[in-house]
């Protein structure tokens, strides 16, 4: 089944309250074409509303059906986090919490995640160095300001209080 892309538009009213509306669109176009279309959409929308259009975001659902070993194990808990703290090239911190960290990845008598373990090392390398995609293009993670993530500061197990457990 084809899944359309969404264009989410955020609108602010007189009181400063915000709401979002979403338009679904065909998924066969380039990012440049979506950027070309957005002005026509927001100008037409602006003319029928009283609020101020603050931003528009293209939302793209991704097919993840090819993942391997993707099941929730009996002991899984989204409150058990693997917290990975990175630094960008300009020394800004970037934290990432991975829900449901596998317990055996934590060093014994410690809350440190074993960074030498193969799967952990692969994840850290992808965050630091990026992932090579088709066409030998390197897509490398950054912070929200586009500063490249270069090093890991620490990786620890964390627990988030989610209330009583069954």
């Amino acid at each position, binding site marked *: 089944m084809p899944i359309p892309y969404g264009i989410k538009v955020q609108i602010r009213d007189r009181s400063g309250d915000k709401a979002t509306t979403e338009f679904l669109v065909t998924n066969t176009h380039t990012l440049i074409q979506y950027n070309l279309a957005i002005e026509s959409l927001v100008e037409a929308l602006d003319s029928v509303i*009283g609020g101020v259009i603050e931003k528009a975001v293209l939302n793209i659902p991704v097919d993840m059906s090819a993942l391997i070993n993707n099941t929730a194990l009996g002991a899984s808990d989204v409150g058990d986090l693997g917290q990975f703290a990175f630094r960008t090239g300009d020394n800004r911190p970037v934290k990432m919490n991975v829900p449901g960290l596998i317990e055996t990845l934590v060093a014994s008598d410690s809350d440190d995640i074993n960074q030498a373990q193969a799967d952990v090392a692969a994840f850290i390398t992808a965050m630091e160095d990026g992932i090579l995609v088709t066409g030998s293009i390197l897509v490398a993670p950054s912070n929200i300001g586009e500063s*490249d993530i270069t090093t890991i500061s620490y990786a620890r197990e964390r627990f988030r209080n989610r209330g009583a457990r069954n």
Partner: protein
Amino acid sequence: MALAVTVRFDFVDASDKKSFTEVNVPVGFTIAQIVEFTQDMGQLLTNISQCQLTGASISISLNISGAIIKTVAGAFADVAEKAHYVFSSVVTGFRKLLKIPTREELQEVSGSDSMNTALTTQATFIALIEDGIVVAGPATILFTDNYMNDIAALNTARTVLMTTAA
């Protein structure tokens, strides 16, 4: 400073509790390249998590800086006052509801909760949703229902007032 692309990964654990994590990547990549990055990063996350990865999506800010739109909300603009536009799609029986916040009272038919679709502003907005937006390529970005069926025609357009806190 550009705003990076955000890739979100959703997880669920054995107790059906949900959580997510996010990775940012710089703008400048094609949609296909970011999708491939997302799928590869999803596998790396699955390898270190006991939870099931249930979905992933990419959010890309669209540039509306060139659009000619209002910068101050109307005196009565309220996000709880929405215009509901119901469109039928090209497939019989399928419909799409657009909920547009901060509807303009002056664009209603007097003494009614129906939007005045004869107004130029309303007609322009509705035609754009029905016909799509032509962009360079050339290509037409079509608006769709949840199953990516092209939106065909407007059924109803009326005001709905939502409940808000006192």
